[in-house]
């Protein structure tokens, strides 16, 4: 029983990373119709930024948790203005290629300076212990990540559903043309939304630094699963991406724990789920089917 609870907890922690990354991808896709392939690279930059801040300037984890998302968010906004914005009217493939190329550039720049070997980052001392849940002990840091991610997702949900900005963003996501017809300047919100999505990726990166290997390829490995998560949740669906993020984390953890005799299944379970979901609901679990033209 305690084994099951522990695996569930772990699945949720992995899921928290998927959810934060998928949420950023979903809002960006919804607003800009851009599949941001560079999302993993910004996650990596978040983790590396935390490492560089700590080793070069002595900036602690807590400050990095604020500095990196804000800094990367601003960088994302600059990027959107400078290049991505210019390609949104063309075939989506152009931005796909652009962001993919950007990923390679960012990865190699970091590689050039810091090499491929993982860089060390210690868990903040405040969170280095374990919490006793009666049935089992669990690392404090993991509890913190889970709580923090859930809070953040709730906050984003609140902003999107209860504020005027949120309503504009949701409307613009679903029917940009119609929203414009109501006299709302959709374009104004595109850049901040892109920056916000990138900021979330950077935040996930900072959170990952103490528990994952910090190296230039850390995002490239993860982003493949995150894309599967977004597809399962439904492209552009904000709730879907979060739910699918946590769900896939759970499925992966349970698969590893209880299907370890079938390594082929436990290693590919995410993609099996994705295939089944696509067969059953081609627009994803929470995606809306496009009305036939």
């Amino acid at each position, binding site marked *: 029983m305690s*084994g099951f609870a*522990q*695996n569930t907890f*772990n699945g949720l*922690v*992995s899921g928290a990373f998927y959810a934060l990354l998928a949420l950023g991808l979903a809002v960006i896709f919804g607003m800009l119709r851009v599949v941001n392939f560079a999302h993993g690279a910004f996650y990596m930059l978040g983790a590396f930024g935390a490492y560089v801040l700590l080793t070069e300037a002595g900036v602690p984890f807590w400050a990095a948790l604020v500095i990196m998302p804000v800094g990367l968010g601003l960088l994302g906004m600059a990027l959107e203005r400078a290049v991505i914005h210019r390609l949104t009217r063309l075939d989506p493939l152009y931005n796909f290629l652009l962001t993919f190329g950007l990923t390679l550039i960012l990865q190699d720049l970091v*590689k050039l300076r810091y*090499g*491929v*070997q*993982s*860089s*060390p980052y*210690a*868990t903040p001392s405040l969170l280095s212990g*374990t919490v006793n849940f009666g049935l089992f*002990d669990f*690392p404090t*840091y*993991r509890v913190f990540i889970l709580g923090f991610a859930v809070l953040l997702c709730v906050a984003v949900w609140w902003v999107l559903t209860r504020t005027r900005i949120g309503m504009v963003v949701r409307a613009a996501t679903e029917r940009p043309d119609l929203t414009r017809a109501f006299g709302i300047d959709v374009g104004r919100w595109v850049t901040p939304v892109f920056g916000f999505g990138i900021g979330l990726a950077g935040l996930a990166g900072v959170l*990952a630094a*103490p*528990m*994952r*290997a910090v*190296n230039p*390829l*850390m995002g490239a*490995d*993860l982003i*493949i*699963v995150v894309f599967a998560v977004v597809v399962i949740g439904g492209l552009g669906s904000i709730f879907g991406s979060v739910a699918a993020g946590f769900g896939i*984390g759970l499925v*992966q*953890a349970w698969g*590893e*724990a209880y299907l*370890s005799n079938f*390594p082929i299944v*436990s*290693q590919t379970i995410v993609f099996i789920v994705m295939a089944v979901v696509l067969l059953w609901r081609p627009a994803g679990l929470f995606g809306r089917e496009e009305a036939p033209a």
Partner: protein
Amino acid sequence: MRRTVGVAAASAAVVLVAGCGGGGPQSGGDQKLTGDKIVLGVLNDQSGAYSELSGKNSVTAVEMAIADFTAKYGDKAVTKDITVETADHQNKPDVANSKAQEMYDRKGVDLILDVPTSSAALKVADVAKEKKKLYFNIGAATTDLTGKSCNKYTFHYAYDTYMLANGTGKTTTEQIGKNWYILYPNYAFGQDMEKSFSTAITAAGGKVVGKDGAPFPNTSGDFSTFLLKAPTLNPKPDVLGTMQAGAELVNVVKQYNEFKLRDKGVGLAVGLMFLTDIHSLTPAALAGTTYTDAWYWNFDAKNREFADRFQQKAGTRPTFAHAANYSAALQYLEAVQAAGTDDADAVVKGLEGKTVEDVFLRNGKIRAEDHRVVHDAYLAQVKPQSEVAEPWDYVKVLKTIPAAEAFRAPSADCKL
């Protein structure tokens, strides 16, 4: 054999005469080297996961060997025209295959060095056999290079899975605990390591109470399922043996510490670890971990002298792969000098059965039976942070494993 220059010169003369008497395949008569020069090829990972433990710094090590060789022989050297070719095989067997062919055929390479990643290493062995050109493997671990895939032109220089398992598996079982839980990446290298370790542990009177193949590559980066399982096994394992490498090893160790398995009585043993891995994780994260090392830069004055020179050129301390590349290039050049020709068959003849002593090879011997280069190995333990006196000095050597025990006996599968 060559402790003094006198002995070296004498033996060189003998082999030289023998070589000429045998009548090499060269028709030119006076021309002893193809193209009047020697070309060494370093084929390894120059941008990926293994580019720091060998990579470009292995090229630096090979260049050091050339400089040392030239300085030693001066005008008596068989040639002063020794160059290095390099290529990136990206750890892909097919790329390694085509790059190796290109090196031998078009770049005039006499010897290919390094080639980490077992699957790529085996491909290059096939190319060496086909082209009848020399190949010293350093970076790969598979024992197949001196087993069923061995051939006349391939030598396995630095280490292999047997050496790692025998050193770490046996000693840890005897000194730390009998019950093991093995976690390995589920592909050729990991499966090979798991088998080698299980054999060594059982032979030492230990028991593998559980083993799991983790997904490879592990895209989620999460190993907690396995780490949580370890202390719940019955009987409880005394040691977690992880066979993961590079970034995956970093993930396992970080999470091992997160779940405080050491406090729960489960020690840590690592299958394959390079100095660069310890640097990534910091000694604090690994303190007390035992593993088998093929060479350590601060083991004695001789190693340290080499490490100091290496640091001046490369800006970092050498891993055992760097030292082995240096040694392999140097021993090849010595063999060519002795044979007076770069003809592969003549050089192989000079190398087989030779005993060698240099900065990397201690009590070294190039076995004629399977071309395994045997030498002393070391059981090492990561120091606690408080004992780390200078950067990169992360390890203390607990025990020297004599060359005769460090490697397996020649395999019956190998027919040269």
